[in-house]
């Protein structure tokens, strides 16, 4: 744990992690939208708590590296789907890489 987070926890306490109820479904329309974050590289959807986030290239590289997997040539056409994320209390470390479904305009 970083010193900053540790200090903040000591001073203020900490929120509870979101309950990972599971079974959340990602909205294909949301996946088809252009990334909005200037650092945005791919998306990650947590089916544990329903959280959809944009991740930057560094984080995508951390995930691919930890999976011992080569990044595809066209990473923006894919998204990660996990059972837990940094905000929820899920315990399942399963993660999948999916192609973003084509959505008709």
């Amino acid at each position, binding site marked *: *744990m*970083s*010193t*900053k*987070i540790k*200090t*903040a*926890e*000591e*001073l*203020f*306490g*900490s*929120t*509870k*992690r*979101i309950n990972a109820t599971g079974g959340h479904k990602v909205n294909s329309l949301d996946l088809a939208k252009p990334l*909005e*974050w200037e*650092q*945005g590289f791919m998306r*990650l959807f947590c089916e544990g708590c329903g*959280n*959809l*986030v*944009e*991740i*930057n290239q*560094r*984080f995508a590289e*951390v*995930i691919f590296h*930890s*999976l011992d*997997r080569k990044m595809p040539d066209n990473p923006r056409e*894919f998204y990660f789907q*996990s059972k*837990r*994320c*940094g*905000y929820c209390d899920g315990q399942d*470390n*399963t*993660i*999948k*890489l*999916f*192609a973003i479904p084509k959505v008709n305009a």
Partner: protein
Amino acid sequence: MREGYTGHLIERELFGEINKRKYKEALQKNYEIPSAVFDNFELFVKESWKKISLEKSLALAKEAQPEDSDPTEPTPRFAGDLYAYVAEELGFKKEDDFKKLRFYTAVRSHADQRGVDAFFELDTARETIFVTLDVTGNPKKGDEWRADVVFEWPMDGLDPKLDKEEWARKTREIADRVIYEIQKRGGK
């Protein structure tokens, strides 16, 4: 040859479905990510982003307060002392007064993305106002989002018993800045 019927289309017609299925299977394989990736909250917050308003992120943080916490009697010690100083400055004495001032932690919540570690909520005659707080080791850091009150705190900690004077001085100083922000919003 039919119009537009190229070698690529012939290939796709002959092999396309098989390749597509295998490709899909390979994509959807289950992988086990090391738990350290999601357990590292700071990595997750720094390297990911969610389109969320400050108001919404504070509302989510409020819903995720620790069990048995009371926003009018916050813990840990620092939060409690800070609350007491701010309430004192606001001239609160009665129980109903204290109900108007609430303190919430936002550590490890979506508000972290906005550089907010904690916040006060104060009911005024006109509206409810918020004052956000962030502790940092480097107040000059150029983050996009900054809390209303960003303050330094010794990263090796202060002990309220051993460093009694310094603890009180720093806590009062931060409380004064909270009051200043409340005044700016017409809350005092």
